[in-house]
């Protein structure tokens, strides 16, 4: 079993390496990439916006109950802002999208594999890897940081809504306070690390999709595994990436 896991991990690494190589090699599948950017990115906006808002409300309530003990309610917006931007926003967006996008990619490519549609693409003289995998990888790498920024923003809106309901704080004042401690070194690396999350979600799910075996059951399995393994890969990668960020931008 460990040998099989190692073999699969090695196989995925080669697959991911090929995706990186083919990303920069022409011809570029611009139309297909834009289509996926819409399908995977734009269609995820309601999920991310709603979740971000809810997370912001809940975090604000928790922060208030903690800081109120020390009479530090004034720090609530700044605390929420820095927590969202540095970690909660990127990780929550990554995990939500690994569910939505990972399952979709795994199931779609799995279904295409078992119904010979991937073979049909090849038979029609189309590089199926470039057409199906690289386009999704590029779309995810672009979409994740944008969606993470959206989650950060709606999270702060949720925090504002929760605070406004209690204290009546004006929007401008709240956002001034929320961003008072946030620096570019907090925002940029944390947001850009989600491009790596996007790469992991797309490559893991595509790898499982195009290696689907066994008909409908195999498609279901590919979809489930895509979510589980891409979430796991994302959480583990997050540890490494946060360590790297602290190395380059010491707190």
């Amino acid at each position, binding site marked *: 079993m460990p040998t099989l896991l190692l073999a699969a991990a090695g196989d995925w690494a080669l697959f991911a390496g090929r995706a990186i190589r083919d990303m920069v090699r022409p011809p570029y599948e611009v139309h297909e990439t834009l289509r996926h950017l819409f399908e995977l990115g734009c269609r995820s906006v309601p999920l991310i916006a709603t979740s971000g808002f809810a997370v912001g409300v809940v975090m604000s309530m928790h922060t208030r109950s903690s800081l109120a003990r020390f009479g530090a309610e004034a720090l609530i917006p700044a605390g929420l802002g820095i927590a969202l931007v540095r970690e909660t926003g990127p990780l929550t967006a990554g995990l939500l999208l690994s569910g939505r996008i990972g399952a979709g990619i795994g199931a779609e490519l799995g279904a295409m594999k078992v119904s010979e549609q991937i073979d*049909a693409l090849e038979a*029609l003289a189309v590089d199926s890897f470039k057409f199906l995998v690289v386009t999704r990888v590029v779309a995810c790498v672009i979409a994740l940081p944008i969606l993470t920024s959206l989650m950060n923003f709606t999270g702060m809106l949720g925090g504002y809504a929760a605070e406004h309901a209690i204290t009546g704080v004006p929007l401008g004042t709240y956002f001034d306070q929320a961003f008072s401690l946030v620096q570019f070194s907090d925002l940029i690396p944390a947001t850009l690390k989600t491009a790596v999350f996007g790469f992991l979600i797309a490559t893991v799910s595509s790898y499982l999709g195009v290696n689907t075996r066994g008909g409908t059951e195999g498609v279901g399995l590919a979809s489930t595994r895509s979510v589980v393994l891409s979430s796991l890969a994302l959480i583990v990668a997050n540890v490494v990436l946060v360590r790297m960020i602290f190395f380059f931008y010491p707190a």
Partner: protein
Amino acid sequence: MSGSDAAAVELRHVTKRFGSRQVLDDISLAVAAGRSVCILGRSGTGKSVALKHMVGLLRPDAGQVLIEGEDITDMNSRELSRVRRRIGFLFQNAALFDSISVGGNVAFPLQRHTALDRAAIRARVGELLLAVGLAREHDKMPADLSGGMRKRAGLARALALDPAILLVDEPSAGLDPITAGEIDQLLVGLKQRAGTTLVVVTHNIPSARTLADEIVFLHEGRIHARGSPDELDRLPEPLVRAFMRSAGTG
């Protein structure tokens, strides 16, 4: 026919194994340009595997695959794409792209590989769908078509680039005899009109009799018998005789 320079499709001593299972065992086969060959045999004897080697979807463990004299055995994907533009492939289940319409499926290879403008592509798609009797199904999705319609749409897509070689996997599988006969007539007409080389995998004996200049009978990964339909009819070999006398409809 032996391997010659004139062969449109040629397998030379092709061997293929999946795990411990030997699927093709030293197969050699050459199909001259403009001829039609049907590959017959029981299920699991490697017919579809042989066909997929001819378009480079599978690579042999040993031996060579040649298309119009070009060895595609170890070609990279870019070179293979160039060769594949001369080959049409009709899959057993048509393998239509289920996220785009029937018209979109047929237009796909034209959009990818020709410089035709939108109007010209639409006209060409219309011609192809008319030829396979699906002119009114242009905007339907593949899921809304019957099995026979899907197969005809797959045939229209396979013919979009006017291939010199058409590989067909089980054209009559799962179809009623009338629809199967219609597809056979489309293939015969294509061969006669355009001189297309046909390689057809089938279980269907009437279909093979209609289509084949030569029948190749596969058994346990090897070529067990070959010849014209009449020659195979006269062959005293029990397995071939049983097959040729059956009214198998796949």
